[in-house]
């Protein structure tokens, strides 16, 4: 009988934000991602330095300490290509600290699209190329193979699971959303509809969001959250099923929840407490899939994500600006690929990062609740304006490459 386990999975990502890129830049300058103003929230280098200091450096140090102190502590990470590229340029020490974690053998890297894109919903070819590229990058950097897949924003449906099984993955991650699960618990491994072997891990969003979203909320009745309280909740949850899937943004630690909220000490204390009980352990995502048989089939014909109360794609594709932006971007695929110009293809792919359309989301902006909304732009309209000018520039570069190929 396998032990009860926490499956901790952290998502590491930074997009390359588009600067204030006007029509007068279009066809003249191709530096969409280089905001000259270091004080700007669109300056990618400045943002990376800031988040590295607040989150990546202290959290990696803490993770390493936990791995050294607790032989049973394990963690899974997905690290996007756009993050890795920025670290290579501006924070190589951060990348080294991730390598050090992986070298312990108890840190698993999860597969995803290199560019943190929504390509699955637009172009299967492009999507697979980005998964391949990411696997290759992970292999080169960390010397490991990936075997479990997560799609951008945890956007998942049956078709994706079937694709992942065909590709050769043994596991896939998704949101454990009540309307889908009904009376069932997210604390088991499931089998996606239409698949034979692949294991589905569902995020325990209550326990995950207690840390990721509610931890520093002083209006929350459980504030301030202590490790023993959280341990008790974990015990209660694991009455129903053997594993608790804690899926969240890596940047929860230090960036979304600042150090002065006590997030780091909470994390350290919880791990110690949890492992002090010999019945408890941690699993990486592939270990969890290996350790437990599927407890039945779960079907998600419609796409489910880990975002908002709707758990759908409306934060990225909910309004016409977002739909238009991606439609025009992906319309260029054929011609961009035929140029064989790696700089051009790279820029086209960097524009696919889902954050760009997220910045165009108006569903909070209309409520005036702009604080619920992470954006380096003054408004969703500005985000749309600069993005479309960059798309036009991509088209111009294709045209000057010798025209469209039809």
């Amino acid at each position, binding site marked *: 009988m396998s032990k009860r386990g926490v499956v901790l999975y952290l998502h590491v990502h930074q997009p390359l934000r588009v600067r204030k890129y006007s029509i*007068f830049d279009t066809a*003249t300058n191709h530096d969409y991602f280089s905001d000259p103003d270091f004080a700007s929230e669109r300056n990618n280098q400045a943002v990376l330095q800031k988040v590295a200091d607040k989150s990546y450096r202290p959290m990696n140090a803490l993770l390493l300490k936990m791995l050294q102190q607790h032989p049973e502590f394990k963690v899974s990470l997905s690290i996007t290509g756009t993050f890795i590229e920025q670290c290579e340029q501006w924070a190589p020490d951060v990348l080294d600290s991730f390598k050090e974690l992986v070298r312990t053998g108890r840190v698993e890297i999860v597969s995803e699209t290199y560019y943190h894109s929504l390509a699955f919903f637009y172009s299967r070819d492009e999507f697979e190329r980005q998964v391949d590229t990411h696997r290759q990058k992970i292999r080169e950097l960390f010397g490991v193979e990936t075997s479990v897949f997560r799609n951008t924003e945890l956007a998942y449906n049956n078709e994706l699971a079937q694709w992942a099984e065909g590709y050769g993955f043994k596991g896939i991650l998704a949101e454990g959303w009540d309307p889908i699960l009904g009376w069932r618990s997210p604390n088991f491994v499931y089998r996606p509809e239409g698949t034979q072997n692949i294991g589905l891990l569902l995020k325990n969003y209550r326990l995950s969001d207690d840390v990721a979203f509610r931890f520093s909320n002083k209006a929350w009745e459980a504030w301030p959250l202590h490790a023993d309280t959280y341990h008790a909740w974990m015990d209660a949850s694991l009455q129903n099923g053997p594993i608790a899937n804690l899926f969240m943004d890596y940047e929860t630690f230090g960036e979304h929840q600042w150090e002065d909220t006590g997030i780091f000490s909470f994390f350290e204390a919880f791990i110690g407490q949890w492992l002090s009980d010999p019945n408890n352990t941690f699993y990486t995502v592939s270990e969890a899939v290996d350790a437990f048989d599927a407890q039945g089939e779960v079907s998600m014909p419609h796409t489910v994500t880990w975002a908002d109360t709707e758990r759908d794609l409306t934060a990225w594709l909910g309004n016409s*600006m977002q739909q238009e932006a991606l439609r025009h971007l992906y319309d260029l695929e054929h011609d961009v690929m035929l140029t064989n110009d790696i700089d051009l293809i790279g820029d086209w792919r960097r524009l696919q990062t889902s954050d760009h359309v997220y910045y165009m989301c108006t569903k909070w902006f209309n409520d005036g609740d702009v604080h619920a909304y992470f954006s380096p732009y003054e408004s969703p*309209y500005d985000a749309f304006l600069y993005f479309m000018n960059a798309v036009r520039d991509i088209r111009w570069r294709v045209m000057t490459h010798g025209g469209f190929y039809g």
Partner: protein
Amino acid sequence: MLGWELPPHNSGGLGVACYHMSKALALKGASIDFVVPYKATHPEIDFMRIHSATPLSPLHRYGMGAYDSKFFEESLLGGEELGDVRDIRGVQRKYVRYVDQLLDTVQPDAIHAHDWLTIEAGMHAKQKSGAPLIVHVHATEFDRSGEEYGNPVVHEIEYQGLMMADRIIAVSNITKSLIVQRYGIPADKVEVIHNALDVDSFANYTYDDSTYRYLETLKQEGYTIVATVTRFTIQKGLTHFLKAAARASEKYDKFVFLLAGDGEQRDELLRLSADFGIADKVVFTGFVRGKQWRDAYSVADVFVMSSVSEPFGLTALEAAHHDNAVIVTRQSGVGEVLHSIFRYDFWDTDVLADQLVGIAASRSLKYELTQSVKHEYARISWASVADRCLQLYQRVKEKAYA
């Protein structure tokens, strides 16, 4: 002459019209004292005396606003005047007081007041000096508010001024009929004098095709560039324009629409361009002046003035001068002086779409339109505008209209 702005401190056509009209009048021997509500240098104006009614910067001529620094106000104005120029009514009160003082040393033969902004000062000046008041209407509140009603205070000021005026100049027949019908002014009190285009001001200009390089590239691929250069306000009818753009794009693929300018409707227009599925074809420049402004005309093939209500519409003449085929709404006064153009009702998006496709699909139609229109705007000049103003001053003085 009572005005609100002069180049280079203008935000629109009013300043341009005042400048050229004054210059033409001065060339014909008129001696002009021109009052503006701000303090700034006008390096290109040596043909008249410019008086600053307030020490405010040109940016504050519509009022200081609630967010301007208190320190700034105090340093410019005495303590007792604090708060007085927070809004445009405060600036207007100071303007009237200044004109009052100015009349202690200057005795005009005529008072020429431009739009509601200066009408109160004009009325006061008439009472104090006894000189005749000519109210020059470039736009009424009915125009500015588009399809809405507008500000009742402004309506009231306009009404009073039009009643008190000895003579009214309207920039088009459209404006004249508005003055007659909406304000109940007798038609024979209103004279129509159309604005003109100063071709010389475009003389030392060469087009830089790298300003809009993306659009130039598309043109070489056979695209037609449809432009408008305007403020993005409800008066300008741009939502109808975008709807027509979408309709036209259904029939003809190679269009790009250049929206040069900025304004309160920008976000709405961005959103609409996406709603209509033509976001890719609609290019927004933000506020343009200088080279970017002039080059917008040059890169364009077709210019559309989509205004719901446009007393004149100088930009259509500027566009014609830059070889654009011109389409204006029937609600735009400039249509009264141009003939080789297309016209449509501002709401009739299907007609506009049809005209756009027609021009884009026919090289000869575009050629005929652009060539013929040149003779038409060349016929009207600021010199003849000045002649008519001088005539009008003379007749008012002789009480010939009474």
